[in-house]
């Protein structure tokens, strides 16, 4: 849709001839009819391009998420086609919006119901640190109750910022060690939150 976009005064003409975006193969050893690489890179590649997010949208950031999901910014390009609203089936908990102290236990319960491996993305200033609401009723950051992997600042963050956060989650997912969830380091992390 061509319209005078303010920032894009000299747009680069898109080059679509023979321009297909391919996923990079992981490093490995290839030979006649076989390709050997590490299990974690293959599993990571598969997981990161098919994350199933759980949008935990509470307030204004939720509306920006709706804009991200819509066709203009399109989260589905990154593999997050299927949004689930049940934690049992989702990999990525996207917490978007202010979490009040009344909501904290519910957020923790949703996190506990997710199966490993699970990632958490705090979208917006309120989820990262309480935002502009330094009050008696707002939880000052969801990392008071659950461990967070990626923080996306903004009030609300632009859809491009949410997509950037999602790409960083994909980086984390793609490079994760297979045994990380059983490691002592991770277990200590969960212990510090009171999660067994």
């Amino acid at each position, binding site marked *: 849709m061509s319209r005078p976009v303010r920032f894009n005064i000299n747009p680069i003409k898109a080059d679509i001839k023979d321009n297909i975006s391919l996923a990079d193969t992981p490093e490995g050893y290839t030979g006649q009819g076989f390709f050997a690489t590490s299990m974690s890179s293959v599993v990571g590649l598969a997981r990161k391009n098919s994350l199933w997010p759980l949008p935990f949208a509470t307030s204004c950031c939720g509306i920006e998420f709706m804009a991200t999901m819509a066709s203009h910014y399109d989260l589905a390009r990154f593999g997050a086609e299927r949004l689930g609203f049940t934690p049992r089936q989702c990999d990525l908990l996207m917490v978007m919006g202010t979490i009040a102290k009344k909501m904290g236990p519910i957020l923790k319960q949703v996190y506990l119901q997710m199966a490993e491996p699970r990632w958490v993305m705090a979208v917006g200033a309120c989820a990262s640190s309480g935002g502009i609401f330094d009050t*008696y009723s707002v939880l*000052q950051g969801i990392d008071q109750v659950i461990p967070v992997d990626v923080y996306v600042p903004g009030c609300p963050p632009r859809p491009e910022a949410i997509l950037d956060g999602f790409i960083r989650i994909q980086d984390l997912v793609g490079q994760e060690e297979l045994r990380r969830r059983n490691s002592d380091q991770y277990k200590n992390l969960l212990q510090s939150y009171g999660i067994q």
Partner: protein
Amino acid sequence: MALTNETIKERLITKFGDQLSRFEEPYGLLTFEAPRDLNLKVMQFLFDDEVLRFQFLTDLTAVHYPNLPGRELAVVYHLHNLVDNIRLRFKVFTAIAEPDIFTATQLYSSANWMERETFDFFGVNFVGHPNLKRILNVDEMEYFPMRKEFPLEDQTRIDKDDAMFGRGGTIAASRDYGEAVPDQGAPVGQAAPLNAPKPAQ
């Protein structure tokens, strides 16, 4: 003849005499004060009277005046006459030691939650309310946060730099950084994450 503030004032004084006081019109809105036992009678009169017809409760809230002993809590009602398009405001004052006000839920169903909110924030006890419990804050909260003596911020925070905000404390003592151990999950080349902060009480 259009309904004017003077007409409303006359009819109210005719009915209630000098029990109503402090008639004034800040920014054009007729405002008066009623004794707290008469709040329902005043609202019922305003509802039923065929000239006045104030049958829409726009807003119900309270204000805390710690400097007026004996009259600390003011419950403010905003009423609206939709047919003649006139608004009015009246207040009832009560002491903070006995914050009992008759409920308006029999007359206006919208008062139900508005009174719960006022109770939640100020501790005004609405006598006769069907379900007077906290609505916006957590049920276990023990104080009434909108009263002037209570602070805005959460007092149990430990991770905020009080020294930088002028609230005492020292900058170094407010965080415990601990040993930073690289997590195998972190991508190579990025800074190692810090240990998880202590969960809030």
